């Protein structure tokens, strides 16, 4: 359905934007994110009093996590939604990207040492290395059944994490005994982690500070002075302003990912991917080297995961193998977000990222803080025993306080239950029913191109929700 060109009747950008907002996917995302913002504004107002600054911080946090999850969900959508490759090793590919980035940009004299190269080299290198890792894994694994591929990829991500934890690679020399090549000292830092002084927040900080590496030692630039004091007057903290700016950069990257996926999806390459997803044998019979296509798309997706990992993990200026980003659980988070939005739909991926980040990831903590503020006095019990003990004397207070205290682990229970219910009642997710057809023209558009009154194709080339669902469009069976 590459016929997503603007209708010829209205040419101006503003008109297009207006129709998109009214009935297209941009409008859908705007409505959902708007509702989430309203909800979190209420959360921030009801929670521990922090004024306007608290509200802005809450909205920043929600946008930040939405953008990160949206990026990775989009990358995973390329694998699972477009090509039907069941990759649950996302955390491993992120780790490869992040550590390659760190090794390239870390200063040569540091512990562990790096190459001391500029930021963009690190980004390109990290993406390349993640793509290469993807190729190495996919070459043998793609011949396997989907569930085997899942096990191989999750095992790969664990191998990566365990290797990074190992002291063997804490500090080593590349090309140590190879003639003609220079000795290059490198290292993963093992459990102690690795410093990432040059990271994607530096360009953002250089807008505001003369010394972005260490804002405290330099002074603010003219822009920084103006922006920070303007926000400061409203009660927004300086760190929140900087994070907010970085969040805007992330949103730009989400847009980039979205655009790239749409381009891929509507290209001849993307049509072959969809054909593979539907029936690999048929695609093969039509003379497409499906294995090569799968390796290629696996590499592209892994490169995007590497980039997502870099934008996510390096902004702390430091990383180590125990970071949640590299845990298998992270892969499942991303997968759940994709399942919520609906595999196959790019808009669904962004929505899924937003809904997961706000309602499942951040929401429980905000809610727990509100309840703690109004209903709990004193220290909550630290153990289940102490919480359940008073139940004997009909006092549910300690158990309630303990529940609020442990909302971070109950959040996982919630995530699990949501995933189960989703798979039972709506395995296609919110927008997964919009199956992207492999044909380059709209097979259901019987009335021809004059049908300009009807609903337009969705922005990501999917089916608009109000149209009749294609005969076999409901379920995806692989």
């Amino acid at each position: 359905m590459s016929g997503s060109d603007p209708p010829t009747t209205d040419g101006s950008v503003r008109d297009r934007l207006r129709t998109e907002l009214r009935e297209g996917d941009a409008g859908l995302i705007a409505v959902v994110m708007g509702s989430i913002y309203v909800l979190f504004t209420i959360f921030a107002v009801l929670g521990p009093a922090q004024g306007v600054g608290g509200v802005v911080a809450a909205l920043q946090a929600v946008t930040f996590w939405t953008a990160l999850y949206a990026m990775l969900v989009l990358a995973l959508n390329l694998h699972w939604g477009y090509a039907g490759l069941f990759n649950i090793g996302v955390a491993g590919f992120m780790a490869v990207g992040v550590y390659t980035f760190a090794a390239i940009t870390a200063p040569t004299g540091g512990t562990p040492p790096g190459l001391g190269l500029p930021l963009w080299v690190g980004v390109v290198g990290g993406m390349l290395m993640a793509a290469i890792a993807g190729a190495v894994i996919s070459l043998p694994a793609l011949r396997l059944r989907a569930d085997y591929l899942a096990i191989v990829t999750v095992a790969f991500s664990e191998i990566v994490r365990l290797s990074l934890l190992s002291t063997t690679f804490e500090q080593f020399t590349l090309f140590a005994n190879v003639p003609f090549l220079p000795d290059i000292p490198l290292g993963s830092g093992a459990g102690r982690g690795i410093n990432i002084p040059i990271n994607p927040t530096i360009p953002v900080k250089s807008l505001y500070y003369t010394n972005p590496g260490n804002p405290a030692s330099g002074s603010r630039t003219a822009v920084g002075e103006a922006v920070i004091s303007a926000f400061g007057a409203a009660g927004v903290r300086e760190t929140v302003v900087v994070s907010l700016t970085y969040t805007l950069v992330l949103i730009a990257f989400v847009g980039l990912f979205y655009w790239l996926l749409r381009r891929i999806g509507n290209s001849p390459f993307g049509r072959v991917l969809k054909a593979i997803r539907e029936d690999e044998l048929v695609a093969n019979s039509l003379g497409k080297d499906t294995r090569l296509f799968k390796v290629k798309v696996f590499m592209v997706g892994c490169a995007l995961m590497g980039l997502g990992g870099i934008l996510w993990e390096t902004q702390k200026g430091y990383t180590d193998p125990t970071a949640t980003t590299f845990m298998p659980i992270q892969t499942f988070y991303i997968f759940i977000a994709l399942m919520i939005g609906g595999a196959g739909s790019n808009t669904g991926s962004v929505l899924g990222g937003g809904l997961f980040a706000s309602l499942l990831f951040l929401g429980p903590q905000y809610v727990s803080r509100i309840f703690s503020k109004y209903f709990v006095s004193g220290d909550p019990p630290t153990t289940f025993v102490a919480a359940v003990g008073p139940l004997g004397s009909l006092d549910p207070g300690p158990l309630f306080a303990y529940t609020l205290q442990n909302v971070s682990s109950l959040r996982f229970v919630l995530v699990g239950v949501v995933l189960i219910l989703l798979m039972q009642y709506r395995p296609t997710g919110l927008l997964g029913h919009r199956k992207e057809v492999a044909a380059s023209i709209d097979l259901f558009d019987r009335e021809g191109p004059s049908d300009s009154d009807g609903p337009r194709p969705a922005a990501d080339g999917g089916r608009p929700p109000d149209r009749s669902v294609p005969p076999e469009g409901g379920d995806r069976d692989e």
Partner: protein
Amino acid sequence: MAATERVADLRLEVAERPKTALFGLFVLGLGVDLLLKVLGVEVTVGSTTLVGGTLAASRLITLVWDGIVVGLGIGLAGIGLSMTYSILSFANFAHGDYITTGAFAGWAVAWLLAGLGSGVLDGNILYLLTVGFGPEGPSAADLSVNAVSNPLAVVAGLVVAVAATVAVSLVLDRLVFRPMRDQSGIAVLIASIGVALALRYLLVFVFGASNRGLTAGGPKLILAGVSGNVALATERSTIILASNGGVPSDAFYVELPGVDFGSYTAEILSVTSAEVTLVVTSLVLMVALHLTLQRTKLGKAMRAMADNQDLARVTGIPTERVVRATWVIGGGLAGASGFLMALEQGTLAYNLGWVLLLLIFAAVILGGIGSIYGAMVGGLLIGLTQSVSLVWIPSSFSTAAAFAIMILVLVIRPDGLFGGVTTA
């Protein structure tokens, strides 16, 4: 003539499956290297050692024993995974957390019984029932739960571990998996990830996220060479004393007759009661399962269902009942292995099963999905790989080595070693 035919067969095999042959050659090379290392032979070119080296025989024996112990635990847990994989055709990612559930349930009862029996109970039964999640109460050392000093607690714990895991897996099947019978394997797999998360963090909510000690060592049996004879003792000090000529009358010390190694004096292998409990119980359970599946109609029905579910149903096999039986056996064995592995490790944390899950997958795939003998053998091979690989690589890579073996097997022989055989 038979020999030439064999060689010709082998040649054909190599030509047809070069990757398998390469892998076989690699394993053979490692075996030769291991043999040379034990014999103390070193083949060097210049300053680099090609093969061989030195490796104490006792170290190899210890590694092999460790591998067998861990491998039997993994194999026991893998049987259930293999059965659900072949009969319900999905990879159950919640299986690891069934193991953890069994471990916690079993140990709560074991601690309760040990606490009631030892008289050190400070009045807080809830403390014992949450396996020491809290500041007050007797420590693991006070309770000293092991098969020798507290057999009742261990047996009761094992029984409860099995019963609780069976109950949990049946309830979860009813709530989660049964409504999804007609869905694809991938959809059920994803749902099982949800089950895993929910189950694991409910356990964290009740039992806490900390890693706790369960037992206080317990008695062990040491096999050692003493001045040429092979002897058994319970204490290391007895061995040292005996090698110097004397033995205290109250210590356990037996010299095995008939073996003479000259003047060899060294500790060969130290076996704890927990390890023996695990090995004996796993072997008994495996044999019992083998007999059940070979001698009863249930085994036949399971094989039929694994082969073709629709055909099984039209033949009159009560498929839902077979599925329930599968969960009972698989869940029960998972619970038992969880309890036993926690006993063997001496510690218990909420991620016990999740950490083991990938190794169990490796074992099941290695053995061939659906084959319970494959799961047992695969478990042993994975355990041995993880353990014996320490001869060549640092310990931080031993788990990675086991995963790498799994990936290799998937690439070379996706059906596993026992491929094609489904359920018994």
